[in-house]
């Protein structure tokens, strides 16, 4: 195999960037679920302070996730 034809630097960048992107997407969406579920549980147990905190966590994670989605669409559109 001709190593010269393979851009090793770009390949390495692809590997680490994909790993980070995959983990960030998974963690971000999981935070939304944790926030929503815990907020509902706290409301049921009349712990309004914790409920608000979890709802805020969920809202922030949703904004970040939607930001990632918009960035993804911009990549598709400008490739």
């Amino acid at each position: 195999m001709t190593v010269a034809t393979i851009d090793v630097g770009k390949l390495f960048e692809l590997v680490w960037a994909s790993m980070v992107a995959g983990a960030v997407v998974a963690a971000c969406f999981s935070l939304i679920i944790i926030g929503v579920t815990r907020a509902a549980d706290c409301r049921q147990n009349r712990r309004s302070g914790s409920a608000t905190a979890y709802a805020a966590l969920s809202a922030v994670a949703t904004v970040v996730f939607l930001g990632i989605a918009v960035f993804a669409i911009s990549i598709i559109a400008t490739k």
Partner: protein
Amino acid sequence: MGDDVVLVIVVATALAFDFTNGFHDTANAIATSVSTRAMSPRTAVAMSAILNFAGAFISLKVAATVASGIVDPAAITTTVVFAGLIGAIAWNLATWWLGLPSSSSHALIGGVVGAAFVASGPSAIFSDGLIEKVLVPGLVAPVLAFAVAASAIVVIYNMVGRLRPGPVNRGYRLGQLVTGSMFSLAHGTNDAQKTMGIITLALIAHGNLPANSTDVPFWVIVSSAAAIALGTYTGGWRIIRTMGSRIIKMDPAQGFSAQGAGAAVVLTATHLGFPLSTTHVISGGVMGAGAAKRLSAVRWGLAGNIALAWVLTLPAAAAIGALVYAVSSVFGNGPLGPLLVSIAVLGLIGVIFGRRLSHQRLVAAQ
């Protein structure tokens, strides 16, 4: 007159390839969503078809022509393109019949490589281009997606493992709507452009467009978008079944991590100018999401068959493309060869599907 007929045949064959590309790759976007019941099958294919159609209009950088950097542009004639398309269609149909996901882009490249090899000899094939654009991405895509999906599912299980399963499953099903939409949009943008490129190339070769033209006629954009959307809506259910439930039996979190990791890999690669096959990526993602939970959760025998299909894609499509070019050439450079081959292929497809239908009726009657 003869050239007009060849042009019509190439355009029709390109749209037929676009259709098979759509229905072959529906699984990439919707198999995990259908499997985890994030969407009903009909809703999923309808959504995917609409987004594939829309995706075809988003970006029109069609300058990248078929097999650029892999085959000498001087060797690419309308007959070579026609033979390459038939090779790709045949391989797409064969792998769909067997329910095996495989790359339509690699099949198209293989078909054109085989036809160009017969037409102009080995010097028309650039081996460095083959390594850089087919072999390396073919190895990187599934392995990387496997690793990313495996780490994503570990992150997910660690974060939500102690929560009630009901809301968690509902949440990841919702998430799959977003990741599935991304896949469909990216697929429409990537793959409809291949057909637009082929038709534009044929129009340039025929003299309908100037040689340095980068403008794609509107009818080419609409027909390419419609063909891939129609193919997607038809849905390659055999491959959807393989991808969605035969490789692993997945829960919504695994479906989300496979699709999310797949989208992350495909879009990162696109951003870096390192295009990967969506089929290879999502297949690797599904296997990774299953293996991270339990190695034995993956049906490795089936995974091996899929890998074998990937290895065979390029040589098999090349062999068919070469054969089609050789047969077409027997009848000279006119339209007779492509016309006879088209009729033969349509007849063969008709016979195979006719026998299949009559067999199904017989089984239903019994």
